[in-house]
Each structure stands twice: as C-alpha cells, then as structure tokens.
C-alpha cells in the first residue's frame, strides 16, 4: 500500500475534514478545516468528495515522502513554494509524487493554512463520522494529535489521472463581514462603531481554538461576565481586556463572555487565512446579506468541479511562475503580509 511519510512538519498541522457535527450538546466541538473552501478545492482536484480528510499544513514548512508506490496529491490554500524532487508544484494544482520522491513545502508566503489532499483520501477510523483532529477530546485519525515527523498517512496508489488546476475566485482583502449579535446590546453604539471603524490585527498567540485580535479596547456596558451560552465558528467574544477573540473550529461549545458580533460563514475561511500582524477591517451586513452570501458560498462549493482545468504546461502556468518568483513580481518570503496585496492582475500586468 502506498503511503505518505512525514519527514518534517511544523506545528499547527493536523488531519482535518468537514468536522463532526451533532454532539455540541455534549460539549464536543465539530473541529474541521479552518478554510473550508481550500479543503474542498484540494479534494476536488484529486476527485475526492469536497470534505474528505486532508492534511491541514500550518504556516511553517513540511516535507512528505511517498513510499510503497506513487501518491497523487493536490495543494491549495496559503501560497508557498512547493516542489516535488525539484520540480515546482503550483498552488491550486494536483501532482503525483513517485515512489521515493519527496514533496517539500516552504513557509506560507501569505495566508496561514495550506491543504494537501490525497487521492482516495486518508485511511483512518472515523469518530462521529470524522477523522478531524481534536487533540483535547482525544479524537482524530490516524493520529489523535497534530502531525509530527515520522507519522505515516496510508494512501491509495496513484490513479495516473491527468493533473489539474482549479480556478478559484481571486483573493481579496475586502473587509471581513459580520452580523451583529448575539450580545451586541452589551456594548454602546459608540463601541460598535469603534469596532467596525478600526483596523485589527491577528495576534501571534492565535490558534485553532481562537484568533486573538489586537486593536482598540472595546468596553462592556455591564461587565464582561455573562451566563455561559452557546458559541459558533466566528463568534466574536470580548473578554475582560476588551480585545476580541474570534472563535475558530476548535472553540469551546459554550462561553461566558459577551459576543458582540459573528463573522459570516462565507468569510470565516478568509479570516482564518489572514496572517498574524496583517491589518484588516470588519464590515457589518444585514442578516439577509449574510444569508445570501452563505447561499453563494454553498453554490461555489457545489460547482467546484466545473472550475477544474487541464494544466497546459507548467512553464506557462501563471501560478507556477508566481510561485517560482520569476514573474517579475517579487514576493517576500518573510513578510507574510504581501500576499493579500497581490492580485492576478498585478502578476500578469495590465493588458
């Protein structure tokens, strides 16, 4: 049987899928991919169901070696340098790693998480229908913890199918959209205005449980303790220090801080990919707008297979050029913030 052996991997890397819903009433949070679109795109590239388990790779580098046969993979999410035995692999493409070859991933050059999908998925023992790692609950398969060097991911032998790229909507640094509530009445209108009028940065102490935000102090009207109630992905809770925390897929199922607003579901993955230290803003939208966005996002996920394209030639692939840093557009490998300023138009130049 083929397998991917992890030669090296940074922290915050784990097997994730669509998550396990249905047991939040028992305190078990769903977990699952931070960026669901990137997960679904990676799986679509290798012919898997969109929310099949894949490797969520954190901001640091990683190296995977194919053993026992060739393994076909796809890479999406945070852009980073990638090569298979010296051959560049572009983001948002599939590629086959021959037996004994290694796929080497560099640091994220923007964004935070990349997704490495494996053709046929990862073999493991599902718990509540999911392989997603939730280390606190002891869940996840093949390893109920973040991945580390020496781990092995069993895989199907590569099919030999033609490699593909996928055309995703262009990256944007538009504001992250929120809807107010459930506890925005714990804050004055001035505080709410401050929240949407200010620039925010994601703190380096963020993780899969929550993204801590740095910005102006948000004052509570009646103190920072409320009787615990349920949380969702994207809940913007404001603890005593007035610095909000966005709750992410490994959050606690309940929390006792007022939640001023909630990131709309369609924007959560985009928020998850904002690198620490990069400034961004929030914008409030109505429930009708948020739900229209949610429906559009569901439609995007549903139609991902229509976005698959043949790879004409690696040399002419604009993403590959971009990744190889030879498109005349210097992208700093150190300053993670540059990616969001780069659009495809910038790389290709004006017509």
């Amino acid at each position, binding site marked *: 049987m083929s397998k991917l052996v992890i030669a090296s991997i940074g922290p915050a890397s784990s097997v994730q899928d669509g998550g396990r819903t249905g047991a939040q009433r*028992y305190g078990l949070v769903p977990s699952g991919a931070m960026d669901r679109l990137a997960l679904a795109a990676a799986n679509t590239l290798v012919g898997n169901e969109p929310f099949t388990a894949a490797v969520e790779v954190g901001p640091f580098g990683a190296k995977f070696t194919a053993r026992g046969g060739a393994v076909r993979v796809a890479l999406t999410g945070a852009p980073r340098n990638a090569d298979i035995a010296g051959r560049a692999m572009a983001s948002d493409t599939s590629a086959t790693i021959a037996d004994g070859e290694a796929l080497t991933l560099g640091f994220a050059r923007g964004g935070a998480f990349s997704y490495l999908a494996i053709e046929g998925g990862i073999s493991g023992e599902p718990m509540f229908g999911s392989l997603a790692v939730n280390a606190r609950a002891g869940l996840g398969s093949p390893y109920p913890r973040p991945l580390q060097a020496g781990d092995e991911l069993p895989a199907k032998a590569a099919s030999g199918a033609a490699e593909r790229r996928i055309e995703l909507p262009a990256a944007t640094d538009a504001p992250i959209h929120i*809807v107010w509530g459930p506890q925005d009445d714990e804050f004055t209108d001035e505080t709410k205005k401050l929240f949407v009028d200010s620039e925010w940065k994601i703190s380096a102490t963020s993780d899969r449980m929550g993204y801590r935000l740095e910005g102006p102090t948000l004052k509570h009207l009646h103190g920072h303790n409320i009787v615990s109630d349920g949380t969702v992905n994207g809940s913007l809770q404001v603890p005593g220090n007035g610095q909000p925390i966005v709750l992410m897929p490994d959050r606690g199922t309940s929390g006792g801080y007022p939640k001023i607003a*909630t990131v709309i579901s369609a924007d959560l993955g985009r928020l998850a990919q904002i690198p620490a230290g990069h400034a961004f803003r929030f914008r409030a939208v109505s429930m009708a707008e948020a739900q229209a966005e949610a429906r559009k996002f569901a439609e995007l996920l549903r139609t991902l297979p229509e976005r698959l394209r043949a790879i004409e030639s690696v040399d002419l692939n604009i993403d590959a050029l971009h990744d190889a840093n030879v498109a005349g557009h210097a992208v700093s490998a150190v300053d993670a913030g540059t990616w969001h300023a780069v659009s495809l138009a910038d790389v290709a130049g004006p017509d």
Partner: protein
Amino acid sequence: MRIPLAAKTRYRLSPAQELDPEKWVPLFPKRSCSKPKPKLRDRLEAMAATLPPPRLLPSGDSAITVEFSRNIDDAANRRVLALDRALAAEPIAGVTETVPTYRSLLVHYDPVQIGFDTLGEGILALAQLPAPATTKARHWRIPVVYGGEHGIDLEDVAKTLNTTPEEIVARHVAGDYRVAMIGFTPGWSYLSGLADSLHMPRRQNPRLLTPAGTISIGGVQTGVQCLAGPSGWHLLGRTAVRTYQLHRDPIFLLEPGDNVTFTPVDAKTFAEQDRAAEAGEFIAEQIAT
C-alpha cells in the same frame, strides 16, 4: 376554565391611580371576580399560554440563540429543555443541531434550506407551547471521593463558609441536581440545584489544569468535569464516572435534563471504580424514579 388574561392586566389604571393601590378598580365586573377560583392545572395552562416569548438573537447566518433569560434561572432552563425536546419531536427542516445551555437554546441551521425569519417564527411557535406535564428524566447516582488529594479545595471552602469539611460534604450530598447544560469541553456537565449555603464566588486565579473527574462548585453551580483541563471553580472531590468515554456505548453518559445525586465513597473505592471505569463500566448508577 381559564383566566383570560395574565394577572397584572386585570386592572385598568388611570395615571392618577397608578401609584395608589386603593384606587385600583377591577377591570372585570364583580360577576367575573366572584366565580370560584380556577383549579391549579387550569391556571398553569393559562400561564403557559401567556409565557413571555424568548428573544431570538442572531449568532451569525447559521445559528439562532433562543434566549429565555439573561440569568441562571431554573424556570428558564426548563423552558430551554422543553423547547429542545419540542424541536426533537417536531423537527424543522434545515435545523442541524441544538445546544441547550442554562438560559438559551442555540439552534444551528443551514441557511441554504431555511432563512432566519422563517426559522424564527417556527421556533417562537414551539416555544409558546406549554411544557408537557410529565417529562421522564433519568436519575443518576454518582459516587464521589471528597477532600484530600482528590478535593484540594474542600478545607478552604469550609473555612470560607465558616463550617467544617464534613458539613460541606453533607450539604453537597444532600442536593438534588439537574443537568442544566453540557459544554465547554466534552462531557463537562453543569448542574443546577446547588444549596444556597454552598454558593461562593469562583477563584480569583483559575487553575490551568484540574484533574479528570473533578467535582467542583463555582458561583451558584456545581459540576462534573470529565477531561483534565482549566477551571476556576473550587475542587471538592473526584468521581470515577466518565461522562465522556470513547469506545463505550453510549459515549456520552449524561443528557441535559437528567437528574443527579452524589454519594460519598472512600479513596480505595474510588481507585477500584476508576479501574473499572477505564475498562468501560458506567460506575454511575441509574436510579428508578
């Protein structure tokens, strides 16, 4: 027979009368007031029909927080659990899961299948239904080893409340508790029904790590903590019962709404029970009610 309106609306006040109860006049003529007092059951029904509607608070585009109270409130928690059962009995298409808490029910849904307004109307209709008169709740007896290394705060709690550790244990064991919610981490069961004489503020400095199976008190609550983790509550003891255990059927032992009482055991019994629990035994006894 039903009282047509809630009690406070039976009097019509002019602004001048408002502050003087002597001047209050019955809204209904004497004939109505002289009728025999309605039976308790009828009055309860009438009350149910006029229960204040919960607040529907948006939690993003895919969940609604149905809030019955802002406080820890037993009546509100009963309404939360009643709505949870009602939604299970009469599912609304598009609802994906529900999460009961002390004072609110979080309803997760798929906005592709149902919108906020339609779902909100459906929830309000269910929330106005009177709670079923009898709801079968399970009753669990959970053994606890109190004090010593297993309950490192017992002595301090006794000192703070000006009594003895034995008295604290007696008060805790005497309680009839109900699982108000399960949350934070898997199996962490928050119980309502803590005696007033055991209420005390949480610790100033939460501990980063407290043991699995910890039985603790905090504020007006007591709880059964399943996994090791942070806690700002006062640790009274430990139980071998795993409210969450993989590879056991069921994986989760307690349900919101279950009744719980505690029974003291010694450290040796705890150690034996802990080994048995590790092997998959429930340890908690279900008591016939």
